[in-house]
């Protein structure tokens, strides 16, 4: 319970700032509003940057893209991954094992390199980054849904449903899918954290949202060259990102312990190596 409170305490302020930022900002994030390199004060809670822009407003506005891209890619990849994983697990066969092989291949490819390749295909903008993150997250949901379906479909209640003549779609969506809900929710929580991190790393490298529009990763890249003058512009965007990711990891741990302690082998760490721990998963 203490973990839940801590998680909420870590996630909520940052998320609230981002949501509030969609409707109201204290200053224009792309406009010079004061002298540069002001330390944190009441009128500028996070100080001002090298141009004299308000860092607080920029953090509020910059988080919008990060959260939107992360939430969108988790949404798309979980829907797609679950659908494909259910199918691959239930019908198996050539296409099922082919899909799994393909997702293993994606897992083996470093995420940043994948994003770079897509960036040179689709330009450096948001679309390439979102697509890369969808591809990067897809295998996790696919494998989870696949492993769960494989073990669930041998259980008696599925046999019973089959015996009373339930059609395949009913079996999949009314009997198997609800039983996968909690591991999927837990995976989604961890994935959201790691996707926020990945998005920030990519925008640090110059992919995704383009200047002058702020994004957390981009702000850190720019602030780095001014470290000698002021530490604050490089500190706050990272702090908000860090506390959000930490909170999401804690929330995932909490959900895992709450919903099903037996899930440990299936979800041993947020990003486990594909070693021993993951294979023998049972839902």
């Amino acid at each position, binding site marked *: 319970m203490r973990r839940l409170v801590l998680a909420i305490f870590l996630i909520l302020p940052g998320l609230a700032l981002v949501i509030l930022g969609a409707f109201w900002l204290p200053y224009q994030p792309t406009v010079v509003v004061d002298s540069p390199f002001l330390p944190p004060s009441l009128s500028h809670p996070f100080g001002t940057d090298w141009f004299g822009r308000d860092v607080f407003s920029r953090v509020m506005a910059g988080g919008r893209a990060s959260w939107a891209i992360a939430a969108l890619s988790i949404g798309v990849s979980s829907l797609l991954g679950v659908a494909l994983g259910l199918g691959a697990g239930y019908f198996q066969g050539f296409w099922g094992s082919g899909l799994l092989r393909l997702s293993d291949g994606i897992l083996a490819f470093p995420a940043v390199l994948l994003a770079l390749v897509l960036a*040179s295909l689709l330009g450096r903008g948001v679309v390439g980054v979102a697509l890369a993150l969808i591809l990067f997250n897809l295998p996790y949901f696919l494998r989870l849904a696949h492993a769960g379906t494989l073990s669930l479909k041998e259980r008696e209640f599925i046999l019973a449903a089959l015996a009373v003549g339930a059609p395949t779609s009913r079996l999949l969506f009314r009997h198997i899918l609800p039983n996968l809900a909690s591991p999927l929710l837990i995976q989604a929580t961890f994935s959201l954290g790691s996707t926020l991190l990945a998005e920030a790393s990519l925008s640090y490298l110059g992919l995704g949202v383009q200047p002058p529009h702020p994004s957390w990763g981009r702000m850190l890249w720019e602030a780095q060259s001014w470290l000698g003058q002021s530490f604050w512009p490089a500190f706050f965007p990272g702090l908000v990102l860090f506390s959000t990711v930490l909170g999401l990891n*804690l929330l995932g741990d909490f959900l895992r312990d709450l919903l099903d302690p037996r899930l440990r082998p299936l979800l*041993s760490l947020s990003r486990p190596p594909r070693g021993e721990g993951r294979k023998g998963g049972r839902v």
Partner: protein
Amino acid sequence: MVATVLGVAMAASLLLTVLPGDAARLMVGTEASPARYEAARKALGLDEPWPARFGRWLWAAFHGELGTSFRYPAFSVAELLRRGLAVTFPIAAVVALLAFSLGVIAGTVCAARPGSTLDLLLSTAGQTFLAIPEFWLGILLLGLFSVRLGWFPAGGFPGWGKGQSLSYLALPALALALPRLAYFSRLTRATMADILSLDFVRLARAKGLQEGRVLFGHALRNALIPLVAGLGLTFARLLGGALVIEQVFSLPGLGKLALEAAFGRDIPLLLGLTALVTAMVAAVSTAADLLYALLDPRIRYA
């Protein structure tokens, strides 16, 4: 293993050919005359069809010849890769070994006394370093140790054999090692917690072995397989070049090379990089597989 490397190189080559964007155009600029553009295409070998190009690349690659970079015409790709590797490999090796050994010790100590103050302290630190954005950690280290305290240089790398070389690599290695240390410590703690409840551990304790021998001699040996799997994966990922950290500290490693090659559509360089990284990853995972048999006599390879 050879098939993997070959397959990835082929896929990468095909992908790079299909993707829009034109290295010849980048080289001569948009203002150049059609004749100069054609000459550039010819010089880069871009006027040939893909199978011919890939076949020629493969033939040369078997002879250790990876072509010349589009962007750095003065250097062969092999030379560029060698220079990148001279930075990336030592960092990867040191970081993987440091994080693995310290992480395993920390995780074992935590698993031995679950719920103790030390366990709580180390687990909290672990959670923190697993969630911390790597590049933010790098920037914070830069801000503290080079800007404020002046103990280390603020990035860049002068090359080996200049006396101070190591001090340029200390901060990036630290920024890479801390999150991985946390990862190994968490992995060890989770694996050891399962093993410590098994009967053979109770037997070892019952026959009066010292707790240290029980933990490090008996239990840890049986926990090593997932840990070595983790080590192999971590080392392989690090060898691919830590793109973000190399960018933070402006180190001329493989990651920075990959970034420049991808943004500049430097096809020979990207191809050589992909082949090298895939070969290294395949070698590392084969080595890890062989290590399993050494660690666990029950595993045998025909």
